[in-house]
């Protein structure tokens, strides 16, 4: 089990990298655009996945942190003419502070009550984004958010912005994977499986839950800032409760305990509606049916199903080998 990785896994990884690098140049512009959104949603979905898969917490408030990141970037660059990085930093700081302040009281709730608490947070935030139009521009929003450039290289097209978004997404995936494999990850899963026994082993439930909530908010805010610089325009419509539900779907569909599963979930919610919309007016019904099919047929998500399939094949292979 401890042997080094086989050569084939490096070859696969290399091929995947090559495909990743040439993909935005060979697909049409609107597909490249969707791939950018997939990256942004992967970042936001990673936080939800950590909470859902490793803490058993349903977070329906991610659009709030996504919105804070987006508005912070819009306000800093358009209104205050500050460098883009300040928007990212301000959004992250505000989101983490809010998650910490709100997390301490509402993470005392469990199960459905906690889910409803986060839903309420999302509803309140979405109302405030609308009401505080002196800050957010209300329904008119804030436009003219500058495109980013990286080391003098203008990221003004989806095929270029793609690289920044996905590099951030891979970094976030690495950080999330670190957490899952760490001492903290162990304590989180213990708490998810039995909070009573975890407490007896000195796992500090409250503080752990709050800290993961803060990490989730950080991911949400980063995704929001990236979104603002991609769309050039942000308004209240992008940060409603609907968006929160969409974010929750990502780990549910892809598999909450799997990090690649988050990418699968993000691909699903960006590409499937787009593909189905070509089929006519009933595309939303079809998307709904596809969702129901995934949740009913593979409750542990697409990656969960894949994992079980692989395990079964290995078991069968061992059986044949004697």
């Amino acid at each position, binding site marked *: 089990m401890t042997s080094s990785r086989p050569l084939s896994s490096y070859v696969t990884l290399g091929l995947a990298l090559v495909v990743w690098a040439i993909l935005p140049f060979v697909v049409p512009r609107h597909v490249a655009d969707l791939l950018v959104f997939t990256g942004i949603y992967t970042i936001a979905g990673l936080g939800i996945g950590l909470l859902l898969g490793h803490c058993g917490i349903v977070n329906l408030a991610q659009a709030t942190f996504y919105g804070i990141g987006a508005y912070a970037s819009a306000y800093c660059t358009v209104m205050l003419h500050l460098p883009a990085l300040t928007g990212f930093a301000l959004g992250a700081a505000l989101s983490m502070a809010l998650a910490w302040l709100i997390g301490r009281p509402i993470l005392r709730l469990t199960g459905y009550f906690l889910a409803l608490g986060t839903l309420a947070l999302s509803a309140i935030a979405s109302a405030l984004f609308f009401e505080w139009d002196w800050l957010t521009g209300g329904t008119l929003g804030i436009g003219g958010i500058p495109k980013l450039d990286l080391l003098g290289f203008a990221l003004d097209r989806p095929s270029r912005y793609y690289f920044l978004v996905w590099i951030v997404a891979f970094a976030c995936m690495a950080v999330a994977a670190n957490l899952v494999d*760490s001492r903290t990850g162990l304590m989180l899963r213990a708490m998810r499986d039995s909070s009573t026994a975890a407490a007896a082993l000195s796992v500090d439930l409250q503080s752990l839950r709050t800290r993961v909530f803060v990490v989730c908010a950080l991911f949400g805010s980063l995704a929001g800032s990236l979104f603002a610089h991609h769309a050039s325009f942000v308004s209240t419509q992008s940060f409603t409760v609907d968006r929160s539900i969409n974010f929750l779907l990502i780990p549910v569909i892809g598999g909450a305990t799997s990090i690649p599963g988050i990418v699968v979930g993000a691909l699903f919610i960006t590409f499937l509606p787009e593909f189905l919309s070509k089929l006519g007016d009933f595309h939303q019904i079809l998307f709904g049916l596809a969702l129901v099919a995934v949740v009913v047929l593979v409750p542990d998500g697409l990656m969960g199903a894949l994992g079980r399939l692989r395990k079964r094949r290995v078991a069968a292979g061992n059986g044949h080998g004697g």
Partner: protein
Amino acid sequence: MAAEPLLALREVGHAFGGLSVLRSVTFDVPEGGIVGLIGPNGSGKTTLFNIVSGYIRPNMGAVLYRGTPLGRDTIQQRGLAGLVRTFQTPQVFEQMTVLENVMVGVTKLTRTSMLQDLLRTPAARGQMREIRERALAACERFQLAGLRDVPAASLTAGQRRILEIARAVVGEPRLLLLDEPSSGLNAQEIENLRDWIVRLNEGGMTVLLVSHDMGLMTVAPMVHTLYFGEIIASGDMAAIQRDARVREVYLGV
């Protein structure tokens, strides 16, 4: 004077609503000792356990640990101070493997910040290696090595019980609270359990043991009998079994 007891219960009383379940319970658990607690169902044993481990705050009396009242100390604080319990119904982390379950028991001996964990710093990696090594050793010691990659959900009742004990012991508690550790075990497993308790105790661990199992109870030189929330007899198992009141109310003869 004898040395200060590791754990001391002073006039501990508790009622749920109007129902009094513990009345003025006072006893000591000496450092390095094994103390047993027997009593029929509903006599208050588990409530007493919940009070000592911090799941319930008593209405009356005090619990002193190393001479200091535990008062409002949380379950986690008591755990860090070296007081670890098991449960009457084993509470394993079902979706985690046996090894991971035991690893959770080691986490309290190590310290990393979440930031270190997120960035997988050398310190975080080193601690994780240490956690794993200690857990592997404990799996070996409690004969769980063959099951270490199995999800805990697929264990038998007896295996869950042993896993729970291994997970508690690996955190090096000073005081181990065992709630009905032999229920669900077969004769051989009970024999092993007895062995482990004796050896852990010889290694310096103090044990408070609740059990119905009279055979297992003979490991404890001091046994208290609880009946409707009161201690009605104390002594070694032989003395308890001779006690007229115990025979009347508990053994039913």
